[in-house]
C-alpha cells in the first residue's frame, strides 16, 4: 500500500501491548516525548488473552498520573486495530499528531531547555 504517516512518530515494537508498563510511558515523557499512544490488537483478539486489556489499564493509569503532575493525561491514548488495517493505522497516526499539535509540546522539554541555557 505504501501509505504515508507523520514522520514525527517513532515506533517502538513490542511482542504484545501487554508488555507496556506504566514506567515505559512515564520515561517517554521524562525524555521529552510530546505524546504516547499504544496500538494494540482488537479487544477480544489478543493472542495472549488479555495483553491489550492490560495495556489499556496502564494507559489509564498514565493518564491519571500525568493529569495529577500537570503534564496532561490527554497526551496518552490507547487504540485498538487489527494488523491488516493499514489505512486505519495511518488515520490514528494523523489523529494523534493533530491532537498533540493542538496540545503543544511537552512542558518538560521547555523547562529542560531553559535549565540548560
Amino acid at each position, binding site marked *: 500500500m505504501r501509505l504515508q504517516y507523520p514522520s514525527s512518530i517513532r515506533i517502538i515494537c513490542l511482542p504484545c501491548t501487554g508488555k507496556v*508498563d*506504566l*514506567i515505559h510511558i*512515564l*520515561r517517554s*515523557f*521524562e525524555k521529552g516525548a510530546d505524546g504516547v499512544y499504544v496500538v494494540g490488537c482488537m479487544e477480544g483478539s489478543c493472542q495472549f488473552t488479555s495483553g491489550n486489556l492490560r495495556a489499556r489499564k496502564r494507559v489509564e493509569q498514565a493518564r491519571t*498520573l500525568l493529569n*495529577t*503532575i*500537570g*503534564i496532561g493525561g490527554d497526551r496518552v491514548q490507547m487504540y485498538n486495530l487489527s494488523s491488516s488495517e493499514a489505512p486505519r493505522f495511518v488515520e490514528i497516526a494523523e489523529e494523534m499528531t493533530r491532537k498533540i499539535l493542538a496540545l503543544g509540546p511537552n*512542558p*518538560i522539554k521547555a*523547562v*529542560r531547555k*531553559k*535549565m540548560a541555557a
Partner: protein
Amino acid sequence: MIVAKQKPIEEILEGLKGSGRVLVAGCNECVTVCESGGKKEVAILASALRMYFMNQGKEVKIDEITLERQCDREYVEELRKLIDQYDVVLSLACGVGVQFLAETYMKTPVVPGVDTCFMGVTEQRGVWTERCQGCGQCILARTGGICPVSRCAKRLFNGPCGGSARGKCEIDKDLDCGWQLIINRLKELGRIEDYEVLLPIKDWSKERAGGPRKIVREDVQ
C-alpha cells in the same frame, strides 16, 4: 505479608515540601509483593516526581534505591554512605521500615510514601485481604484455622453476634461473617462439636493493648 497502599501523590508532595534532594527508597519484601513500594513502584513514583518538579521549574534531585529489607539492620546500613547526600528519604516500605530508617539515621527526615494497612494475603492480583492482627496468642487450632480476631469485626471469641445474617457481617454486606466461616470449616473438618467448647478469656495484654512488644531469643543471638 504486610499490605500497604501508596499514598496519594498530593500527600507525598506535601511531605517533600522544601526538599532539594530526595531519595526514594523501596523495599524488596512485602510492599513489592503487594505492588505498593517495590523497585517498580519506586521507579514510577520517582519518574512522576522528577516530572512534577521540573514542570514547576524547581531543580529537585530525585534518586532511587530499593533495599532488600528496610526492617533489617544489615540492609538499612547500606544507606550509611549515601544518606548525607539527601535532604529527605521518601520510604515506600511499611511503617516498620520507615521507623527503622528514621531511628538509624537521626539527622535525615524519613517520610512515608505508603499507608500500611494490615497483615494479609493476595486473594488474586490486585486484591488483598486481612488475615492476622498479631495478637500474640494464636488460637487458630481451636477455630478451624480461621481467626476470629482478624475475621470478625467485633473480635468475638464464642460464636457470631446478632448482626450475622446469611453468612455476612452487619458492617458490610460483602464481608463474610468470621464466625460463619469458622462454623463452615469446623463442619468440613467433622469437628462441629468443638464449636460448643467455650474459648477461655483472651489475655489481651499480649496484643497491642499491653504496649509495644518485644521478643528476645538468647538461643539465636
